[in-house]
């Protein structure tokens, strides 16, 4: 029984049934799962499948030939790379160049020498593995560059970039953009009395709760130690105040469990909106929400304030 191999689904596109059958039997004996088609259109459809990372394409096929399929797959920029081996009766240098320029990774002349095919498929696996590792590294670097390591919220750099971009969009569409800045009340006391690991768990839990409670197109970032900001596109100051108040109440009502103990955590929040500022910029929105946050803290914590001061329906604990 052959070993199971990763990326083992392999497309065989050939209009000759005998070629298909020989390739099917041989590839299966090597541990591959084969996907067989007898024309170019079938090959193009099959190549859209994310699990098809290896393909053997006959040069001449009805509906679309091998080079044409290569061209279309490479132009289509499939998320995962597919290693394509052209099978051809042609072995003239100009034909080989046409095939490789169309995007084939390699070619073999028919009838296929199976020892050679096996070796070339190993090359295909190496290329696919390298590509996968590159994509994984890219994803990891993107995560490291944009996310806060502890809470997995957007980091300060990214959230400020998002704020600036959304401000441009808000100006273009004449729609308001709001910002909520929130700061946990007496967080230092939690760290001092219960330890930093407990403090970290509190931050993580707060981040999870906030993430679940906002609209999909809002973005939450960790601004500093226990400070968070929420960017709310297409949201005016009154609505931002209501959202902040809802979040504040939910937080105050929850007992966060950490290290077997229940901890009560509250936060204060300051709201600001682009439509209430003259020539709003990201920095000005931060300043304004910071002022409102300061006012909420000064008024006794566990409350929401806006800049300029709003009279909202949720009057209790808002200033």
């Amino acid at each position, binding site marked *: 029984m052959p070993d199971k191999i990763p990326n083992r689904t392999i497309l065989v596109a050939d209009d000759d049934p*005998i070629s298909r059958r020989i390739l099917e039997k*041989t590839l299966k004996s090597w541990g591959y799962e084969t996907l067989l088609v007898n024309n170019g259109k079938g090959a193009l459809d099959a190549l859209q499948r994310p699990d098809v990372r290896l393909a053997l394409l006959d040069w001449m096929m009805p509906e679309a030939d091998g080079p044409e399929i290569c061209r279309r797959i490479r132009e289509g920029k499939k998320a995962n790379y597919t290693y394509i081996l052209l099978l051809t009766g042609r072995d003239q240098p100009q034909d080989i160049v046409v095939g490789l320029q169309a995007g084939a990774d390699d070619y073999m002349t028919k009838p296929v020498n199976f020892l050679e095919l096996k070796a070339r498929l190993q090359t295909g696996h190496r290329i696919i593995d390298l590509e996968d590792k590159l994509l994984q590294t890219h994803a990891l670097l993107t995560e490291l560059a944009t996310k806060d390591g502890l809470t997995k919220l957007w980091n300060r750099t990214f959230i400020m970039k998002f704020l600036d971009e959304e401000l441009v969009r808000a100006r273009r569409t004449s729609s308001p953009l709001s910002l909520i800045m929130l700061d946990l009340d007496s967080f230092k006391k939690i760290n001092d009395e219960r330890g930093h690991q407990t403090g970290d768990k509190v931050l993580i839990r707060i981040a999870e709760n906030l993430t679940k409670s906002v609209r999909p197109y809002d973005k939450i970032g960790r601004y500093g130690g226990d400070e968070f900001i929420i960017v709310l596109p297409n949201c005016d100051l009154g609505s931002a105040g209501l959202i902040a108040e809802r979040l504040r109440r939910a937080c105050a009502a929850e007992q966060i469990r950490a290290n077997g103990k229940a901890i009560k955590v509250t936060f204060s929040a300051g709201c600001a909106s682009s439509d209430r500022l003259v020539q709003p910029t990201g920095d000005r929105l931060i300043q304004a929400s910071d002022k409102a946050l300061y006012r909420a803290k000064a008024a006794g914590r566990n409350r929401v304030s806006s800049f300029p001061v709003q009279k909202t329906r949720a009057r209790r604990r808002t200033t």
Partner: protein
Amino acid sequence: MTADSGIPMNKAEALDRVGGDEAFLRELLDMYAAEYAEKTGAMENAIRAADFRAIRDLGHGLKGSSANLSLPQLQDAAFDMETAGLEKDLEGALKALNRLGHEYRRLKDYLGTP
């Protein structure tokens, strides 16, 4: 190369290609018989219609099938058909069709099938 030159099948090579599996080779030869009947029938139609592209493609297809089973004479005759299609040579296509029939009968004799 004349029509009668050489053996119809290089059986050792064909067996080697399928890992020495005699039963599998027989299965492939059955498939070839069906493929041959279908393609030569289509070639007759294409020659009647002077459809040179079809003549070329059918010749090319049968050439590949024949090569897979190490049938050098049939492969050669199918190549003649492909060339006749490319060169728009109806007479050449007819000759290739006759040669295919001749070589196929020789193959059947060689394989011992009636």
